[in-house]
């Protein structure tokens, strides 16, 4: 007798899942997908409104020319830095442990970057002219640098994602896919190199974006050569939280999938790298802040205390950014004893991510909220539902892409092995001993 449509779907679904990977039943998977899909549709509707009716659908205005979108884009891209940095550590610095998370990192990177770019496309007033940036580039603009690097790096990410897809059990039965995946994988370190180069620059220029704003003394920073200090701070912070975010997501996936995906050693290694860079970042950030308070800002006629006397942006925000969400997690991740506890690890990683998010928030939102002219007011801004919706679409999109990748592609190469090891241990148990 022929299997019913439901059964057939289940069989096809199974076909695509790699051998020996335990994945939830088709039904449960659909159940998980459904709400996210719904969210995606809603978000796409919101985005469509903004595209068709124009940006009057948002709550941005002439003073708050950048809003929720830019803030979240910056954050997401910083968190996505795990992709390039892990790649760099694995393929260039040959830290082989990280092979266990590289695929997952690539997918996360892809999701973050493609999502950010999608939102940017909605954010600009004339999306159909976005390509003018390539056609008449103003090479002095940080935004040009960002645009070029991000588009290039997105391409690289797609190419890096390709092998992961082609390795799928069903797809690799097609000889050309199999062969291409094999050959591409041999050259992957080239792409990793290029990716590192590109990411280095666009993470930086995202920071430069604000550091160069001579007209916004709150954001303006002096720097080296053509780059303000924020350029380097952004690179550092991104590189620091990238691994943290990988750690966080991997841990989350382990919890959701209820299975071990990587060895604890990988977690600790990620944490150590993250902690180290975070410590360096915090130091650099502190120095930069002092220079800014004592030299840069006064020279432009603004005393630093003026910025922080508008509620709610008190000096607490500096403390939170540098100490609470910077120094603290760095210390946790650098202390072997604490690092041993996954609980501490994950908390620290989460805090580090919050720290960077806060930093991006301050850079975008506080900069715009603060008045420059003495007679204009301190502004606040609440994003409209269309803005929130559009961003939720990206979140949903991310979750979906990741879920599918996790189900059908082998994101964590050690997963199978870890299961066998677990089985081996099971065998050690006396009840089953002395079998031969």
């Amino acid at each position, binding site marked *: 007798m022929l299997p019913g449509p439901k059964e057939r779907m289940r069989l096809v679904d199974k076909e695509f899942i790699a051998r020996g990977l335990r994945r939830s039943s088709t039904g449960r998977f659909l159940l998980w997908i459904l709400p996210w899909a719904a969210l995606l549709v809603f978000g796409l509707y919101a985005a469509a409104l903004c595209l068709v009716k124009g940006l009057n659908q948002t709550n941005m205005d002439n003073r708050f020319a950048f809003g929720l979108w830019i803030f979240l884009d910056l954050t997401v891209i910083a968190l996505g830095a795990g992709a390039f940095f892990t790649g760099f550590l694995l393929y260039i610095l040959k830290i082989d442990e990280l092979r266990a998370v590289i695929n997952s990192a690539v997918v996360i990177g892809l999701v973050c970057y493609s999502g950010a770019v999608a939102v940017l496309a909605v954010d600009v007033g004339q999306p159909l002219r976005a390509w003018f940036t390539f056609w008449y580039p103003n090479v002095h603009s940080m935004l040009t640098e960002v645009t070029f690097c991000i588009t*290039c790096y997105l391409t690289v990410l797609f190419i890096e994602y390709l092998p992961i897809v082609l390795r799928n059990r069903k797809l690799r039965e097609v000889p050309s896919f199999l062969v291409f995946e094999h050959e591409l994988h041999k050259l992957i370190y080239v792409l990793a190199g290029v990716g590192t180069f590109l990411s280095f620059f666009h993470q930086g220029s995202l920071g430069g974006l604000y550091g160069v704003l001579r007209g916004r003394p709150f954001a303006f920073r002096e720097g080296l050569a053509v780059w303000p200090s924020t350029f380097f701070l952004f690179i550092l912070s991104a590189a620091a939280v990238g691994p943290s975010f990988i750690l966080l997501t991997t841990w989350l996936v382990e919890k959701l999938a209820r299975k071990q995906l990587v060895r604890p050693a990988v977690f600790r290694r990620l944490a150590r790298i993250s902690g180290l860079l975070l410590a360096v970042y915090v130091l650099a950030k502190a120095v930069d802040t002092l220079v800014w308070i004592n030299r840069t800002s006064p020279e432009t006629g603004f005393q630093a205390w003026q910025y922080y006397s508008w509620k709610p942006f008190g000096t607490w925000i500096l403390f939170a950014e540098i100490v609470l969400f910077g120094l603290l997690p760095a210390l946790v991740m650098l202390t072997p004893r604490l690092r041993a506890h996954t609980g501490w690890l994950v908390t620290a990683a989460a805090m580090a991510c919050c720290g960077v998010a806060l930093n991006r928030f301050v850079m975008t939102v506080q900069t715009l909220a603060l008045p420059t002219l003495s007679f204009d007011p301190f502004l606040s801004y609440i994003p409209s539902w269309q803005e929130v919706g559009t961003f939720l679409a990206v979140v949903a999109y991310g979750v979906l892409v990741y879920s599918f990748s996790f189900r059908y592609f082998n994101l964590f190469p050690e997963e199978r092995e870890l299961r066998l090891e677990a089985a081996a241990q099971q065998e050690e148990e006396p009840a089953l001993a002395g079998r031969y």
Partner: protein
Amino acid sequence: MFPWNYGFVWNAGHIIFLGAFYAVLAVVATTVAWAVVRSERALHSGEVEAIRWHSDFESLPCSDQVCRHVLTGELRERQCRRAFCCGECETHARLLERNPLPRVEEPQEEICGMTFPLDRFYHRGHAWARLDRDGTVLVGLDELGTRLLGRPEALRLPRPGRRVHSNGTAFKVRRRNAKVRVMCPVDGKVVETGSAERGWYLRIKPDSKNVQAFQHLLRGAEIKPWILREMERLQLALTAEGAVPALADGGVPVADIAAAYPTADWDAVCGAMFLEG
């Protein structure tokens, strides 16, 4: 973007910036193109099977990549980096001449109630190869393999005249949800196809009959330790793939193991045993 576009000036800024941009594009494009060219070449020179084996081999757990000389106890631990192509392996050659395989008297090994005739070579994917007088090679499934697959629900044999490659697919078997590629021990051309009943599946006219062609296959004294090891792996796979009850009868596999473990993910078990990714 181009010298003839608005706002382009021949100055350091433009040259450095756009230079870097085009360099990146060039590198990425070349990388991809290079991969394409190479895969084209691979496709035409029929390396597909080899490549599949290699990428499968890479995705095997380290415990399954162990060197044959570890099985025999000559080495404590060694992971094979050559995808079991011992022909190219100088360590293998060295070890062989240092201590050649001891002769084994019995015509066959009895292991866990399974018979393994010693007049043939065994592939680690549980296919055997026997050189006939007429110079052809018979290819069959060893007893462990047979018991794993029990009575196949489907069997796909290559048509006579098809080329088969060592470590490539010899024939395909389906049992329950398990789709298994049984790997071919030797390079050659299929001259005749057999069946489970006849005890062999393929008669192959090998490309060469010299020792090199069979170098990578196990023989004689190597069989026993290997099969014991295989039994452990089977055990492990069964436990891992959720087989209840575990082997009850002191480890002697029943004629149809698959039937004995209805709950096990048989696809995964076979995948592990037949060295597929």
